[in-house]
């Protein structure tokens, strides 16, 4: 790929016209999926709610992951990713939408969370002791504060980047670093709280201190996969001609690395609980190693680590777009299964039940996410011409 075409493309950059068929399909699927979920609230309330939580959190994490990816790169003064940085930015633009899907859970807290069920505080001593933290008003306040922080910071990160396009001032690159550093610290704290609040308290007797970190590894792994998929698809559609094999190679390395980080943390959680063998901790894994849940338990490790590890090990594998798409698909399905395994077994210990509600939740949210991302991709120039790292990124070579 020659240098001159790079620079010409960079100068004449504008928003990418997403095919209207894609947009319409996403609108229809979002409507149908979310419609089934709303109907589910009347027919099978718990199934619909766990589906809303699993898929809502899944895509909110992709949005947040976009912002975290940007912030990590800014703080590290990285330049290689600049060519495709509009993709994580478009993901970050989903955060307000994702926040709404999570807020939709608020009226149903007493159905979803055992600690919020009426009368439970009087009969359950452990929960009674935790009541100062686990009560609906405080839960709602925490949720609103966290979501507001995330919406605010993702908005700031995008705004600075878009201002760079116009003002081309190097000072804005410094502003990116400052905002990112503050965001990363606040995000680490709030994301821990979110994972504990929204997922771990589904089984309020059980606790694991590494739970949030393990979730964070899943967030990074799935975000890098989604960025890779979006980058390859946009490149194939002609919107991102500057993307080269070296960018893909580095994304492939990150996929490989974060899948392994996930396995490391997943196993750390399992090993300590298995070793200590304390009933109030092992109960989590006893449920998940019982009946059909056991199948999902092992498939989860295969999808999130074993398969991607083997498939991404050779160097050529990380440089082949079609291969990366396949592995990313495996990891993205794996991330959903991982969240499903965190959310559902507590309220449904009998076994896996995958049906129309789970599918509707995932497809509906995926369509919503696609709408948010394509809307942003359409309205913003694809190449960040004002970013001082752009030239470094165009010439990226591994």
């Amino acid at each position: 790929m020659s240098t001159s075409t790079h620079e010409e493309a960079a100068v004449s950059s504008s928003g990418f016209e997403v095919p209207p068929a894609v947009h319409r399909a996403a609108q229809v699927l979002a409507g149908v999926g979310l419609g089934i979920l709303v109907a589910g609230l009347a027919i099978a309330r718990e199934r619909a709610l766990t589906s809303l939580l699993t898929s809502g959190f899944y895509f909110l994490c992709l949005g947040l992951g976009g912002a975290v990816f940007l912030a990590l790169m800014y703080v590290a003064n990285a330049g290689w990713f600049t060519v495709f940085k509009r993709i994580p930015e478009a993901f970050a633009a989903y955060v307000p939408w994702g926040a709404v899907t999570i807020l939709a859970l608020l009226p149903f807290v007493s159905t979803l969370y055992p600690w919020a069920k009426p009368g439970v505080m009087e009969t359950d001593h452990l929960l009674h002791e935790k009541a100062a933290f686990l009560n609906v008003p405080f839960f709602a306040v925490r949720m609103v504060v966290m979501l507001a922080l995330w919406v605010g910071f993702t908005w700031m990160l995008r705004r600075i980047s878009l201002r760079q396009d116009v003002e081309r001032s190097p000072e804005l690159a410094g502003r990116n670093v400052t905002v990112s550093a503050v965001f990363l610290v606040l995000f680490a704290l709030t994301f821990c709280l979110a994972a504990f609040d929204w997922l771990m308290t589904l089984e309020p007797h059980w606790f694991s201190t590494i739970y949030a970190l393990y979730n964070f590894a899943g967030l990074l792994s799935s975000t890098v996969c989604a960025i890779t998929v979006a980058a390859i698809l946009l490149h194939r559609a002609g919107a991102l001609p500057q993307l080269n094999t070296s960018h893909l190679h580095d994304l492939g390395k990150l996929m490989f690395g974060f899948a392994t980080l996930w396995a490391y943390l997943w196993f750390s959680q399992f090993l300590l609980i298995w070793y200590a063998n304390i009933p109030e901790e092992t109960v989590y894994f006893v449920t998940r190693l019982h009946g059909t849940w056991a199948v999902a338990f092992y498939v989860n490790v295969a999808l999130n680590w074993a398969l991607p590890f083997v498939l991404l090990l050779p160097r050529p594998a990380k440089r082949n777009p079609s291969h990366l798409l396949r592995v990313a698909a495996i990891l993205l399905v794996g991330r959903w299964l991982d969240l499903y395994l965190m959310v559902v077994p507590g309220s449904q210990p009998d076994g896996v039940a995958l049906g129309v509600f789970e599918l509707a939740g995932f497809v509906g949210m995926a369509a919503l996410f696609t709408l948010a991302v394509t809307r942003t991709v359409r309205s913003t120039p694809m190449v960040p011409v004002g970013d001082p790292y752009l030239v470094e990124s165009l010439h990226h070579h591994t």
Partner: protein
Amino acid sequence: MSAPVLIGYFDSEAQVLNATRAVREAGFVLHDVYTPYAVHGLDDAMGLKPSRLTWVCFGAGLLGCTLALSLQYYTSVVSWPLNVGGKPFNSFPAFIPVAFELTVLFAALSTVAAFLARARLFPGSRRSVLPRVTDDRFAIAVAPREAPSELDAAEDLMRRHGAVATDLLEEVAS
């Protein structure tokens, strides 16, 4: 008896990349290219095959993993079984951390060792260093096939691609 080697010195990265490609395309045997730092794109220009070090890394990792698992199995199941917290003697999850560490250790150390051995960087290996290639010069070493005319042609080619100096060495360790 080793053939004489022609060295061409260059001032910049861009020149050495172009000259390397030209030398190879003209059909001369490229002996090696010496640069003060890793130059991106030089592998392509030199037409290097993919490194075989990855296979050393993979094999050593596999060996480390196997050794770790078999040692733990032997000590805790065969040789000296101990009851730890009522767990089975063959407790696979407990073996994983050691297996992980030894996989990484074997893979990393063996790869570095294999690289040093292949590059003949070990105590007692005497290597001559071309002047200034660890500082600000880039050097291409060409091994012409035979005839003196070949030498002249190669020298001329490198001069045309910006060589600031050329030199003929009778012998260079490979």
